[in-house]
């Protein structure tokens, strides 16, 4: 049966066969980081090379599978908007230009994401052009860069531009920023009164700085709390260690739990992380939002991760054996045979 792999087939149809594929030669194999959505500029957006041993073919298969899983319908469907039975009441006659543009847009999310990435890339490589592009759209609809001067991470590059235009833009931005700062300050000042603190105190251990004489209530000493099996976290606020001046997350204000003879036992003292200062908290709470891509979680470094689990492609049990032809994992002989049939119809003998 084995003619050294040479088999004559009278067929003109071509199939994607395993074994080889055209790939750009860019050194070691790249992990598909922007996997599902965006393969257009995938090669450029790699943060780092990894020693992933997936071949290009497996990579493609994975990407296709993920794309298939991400669809709303199996087939492409085009559902036009059905006519309304009674006729709407809202005046439909006139749209503003912006609205007309939005309604007619057939862009998908992937298109918008690509646009956004392109804009970021432009702002990075050519701040002058980016600033010009933004300046060229004076309508309130100029969406991204100018709108989110403070919000999106990219346009900060515009300050680096040497041209008059970008310098002017930067100045404008600075002025705007300043205005906002002032506004914020004005908002901050009058309100210092606080609602009385009540809720999470049971569980939220008021953090102290490392200090040796932290008091610690014994679990048994506190009333039994079913939901809060955590009561051993309750601690007496320690006036010296807690940031008393904190306005944002004020210290524990209720009477401390009953003292316990074991409180001073150095063995029972737990290390408590330093509490963030008001400035830190303020910085966190006013930080601008991350962009869509930055918020996407990615794998941590290789070492800290468990290896990927593999499953039988047929029954879903652990994939213990590999098909010799295509590398698909199966669990045992029964499943291997089922798989062979599919493998044959797909790739030939």
């Amino acid at each position, binding site marked *: 049966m084995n003619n050294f792999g040479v088999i004559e087939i009278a067929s003109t149809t071509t199939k994607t066969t395993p074994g080889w594929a055209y790939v750009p030669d860019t050194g070691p194999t790249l992990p*598909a980081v922007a996997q599902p959505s965006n393969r257009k500029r995938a090669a450029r957006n790699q943060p780092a090379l990894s020693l992933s041993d997936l071949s290009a073919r497996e990579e493609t298969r994975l990407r296709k599978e993920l794309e298939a899983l991400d669809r709303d319908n199996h087939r492409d469907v*085009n559902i036009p908007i059905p006519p309304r039975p*009674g006729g709407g009441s809202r005046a439909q006659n006139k749209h503003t230009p912006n609205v007309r543009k*939005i309604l007619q847009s057939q862009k998908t999310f992937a298109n918008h994401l690509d646009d956004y990435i392109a804009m970021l890339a432009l702002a990075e490589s050519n701040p002058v052009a980016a600033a010009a592009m933004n300046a060229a759209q004076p309508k309130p609809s100029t969406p991204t860069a*100018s709108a989110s001067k403070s919000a999106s991470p990219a346009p900060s590059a515009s300050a680096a531009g040497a041209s008059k235009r970008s310098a002017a833009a930067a100045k404008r931005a600075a002025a705007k920023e300043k205005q906002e700062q002032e506004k914020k300050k004005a908002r901050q*000042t009058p309100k210092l009164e606080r609602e009385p603190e009540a809720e999470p105190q049971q569980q939220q251990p008021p953090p102290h700085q490392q200090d040796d004489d932290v008091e610690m209530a014994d679990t048994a000493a506190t009333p039994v709390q079913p939901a809060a099996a955590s009561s051993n976290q309750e601690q007496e606020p320690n006036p010296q260690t807690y940031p008393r001046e904190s306005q944002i997350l004020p210290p524990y204000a209720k009477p401390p739990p009953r003292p316990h003879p074991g409180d001073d036992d150095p063995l029972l003292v737990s290390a408590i992380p330093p509490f963030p200062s008001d400035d830190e908290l303020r910085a966190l709470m006013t930080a601008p939002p991350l962009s869509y891509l930055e918020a996407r979680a990615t794998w941590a470094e290789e070492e800290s991760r468990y290896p990927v689990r593999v499953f039988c492609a047929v029954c879903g049990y652990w994939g213990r054996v590999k098909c010799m032809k295509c590398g698909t994992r199966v669990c045992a002989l029964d499943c291997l045979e089922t798989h062979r049939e599919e493998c044959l119809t797909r790739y030939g003998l």
Partner: protein
Amino acid sequence: MAGSRKSRAAGPPPPSVTLVLDNGADTIKAGFVTGDKADDRPRIIPNCLARDRHKKAYVGSELEKCRDFGEMAFRRPVEKGFIVNWEAQREIWDREFFDDKAPQRCDPSETRLILAEQPNALPALQTHCDQMVFEEFGFASYYRGIGPAFNAYQDIQAIFHTPRTPDTSTDIPAEILLLIDSGYSHTTVTPIVHGRPLHQAIRRVDVGGKLMTNYLTRLLSVRHFDMRNETYIANEMKEAVCYVSMDFNRDLEKTWKGTRGERREDYLSGGGIAKDYVLPDSHTIFHGVVREYDPGGASSRARRAAASTEDVLTLRNERFVVPELLFNPSDIGLRQPGLADLVMQSLSVLPIGLWPGLLANIVVVGGNVRLDNFIQRLQMELLKRVPDECVVRVARPEDPVISTWLGAANFARHEHVERLAVTKQEYEEFGAGWVARKFSAGLGVDS
């Protein structure tokens, strides 16, 4: 613009009616807040245009009239959690809120809109949204805020059943909270302090209800019969039978048929995991039915099936492998961390001093958290990862799907809304860019 001359409401007194919308990819949660009174529950409207096999089209809540969901095709205006196709979205909103005979009719020019959006939106889509709200619908006043943050405007400690003395007042917004929102398109983790999301720590993993349904569909198509055009039925099946496994290895062992010729006890008896699912046949049954596994062997099942002509699927590891994607996205080759690791990644950018507070107040919302054992599994996995001293409490509101809406409805009555909402006049005067900046700046820190 023509709109500016026409709009008559606005002026100093804010509109008394607020339309609160949580515009999800799968369903819209919509309700009104009038003065100090809010609807008890939002109306839940499917956010899609659907077409059945007879080419009949349904828009939004018309889907309730549909009985036969076989081969249903959907067009959704929301992609990845964000409103992308405004043509379809406008049609649905028009039919639900603005038409003469709309079920929740309101006059936008005398109404404030509070719209929940997913965090980390693309600026272009946000601008589109603002423009549509003011220029097309003409709302008098408007705020677009990120959905997870609205959840803080609830009595969070009641969700945890924290023991309290009756005189303790509840904090609204909650002081500190870690919110996990697992919806149709993706799952996000958002730490929130006093109702302000800590933007630097918001993380997302692209596993949501849609991905899980499609994965279940694929598994069934490989093992049983082709269900690829039956998304709706597969989704019903997922909601009915899927559960989060507390011990994945053990469950997988139990559902393995074994090597050739082997007769494994657990496999034959179902091992407490196998379930039969009767598929709808579009004549007598229109919704699937879960049945206990019938271990009588294939022959008895075949006899029964011949007698009743019903299609029965036996679901074994499909029941827990599908939700497992939330905790191990790498099982399908998606290179993203699981939910517990996601929480840890989010925490890692925050000062350690905040960890105890956040970990002790984890609230999960969204449709996927209704899966059995979701909370227990998350808690178990988190306990393995956090320092020993930290208390981990995970809780889910009574109805996790409408939780964001309830929070937003409370927000609509809170003084914060006056500081954040933008009126139509302001939009016309300062433009969309100013509105976008104001919304993204948020509340700032004070109070």
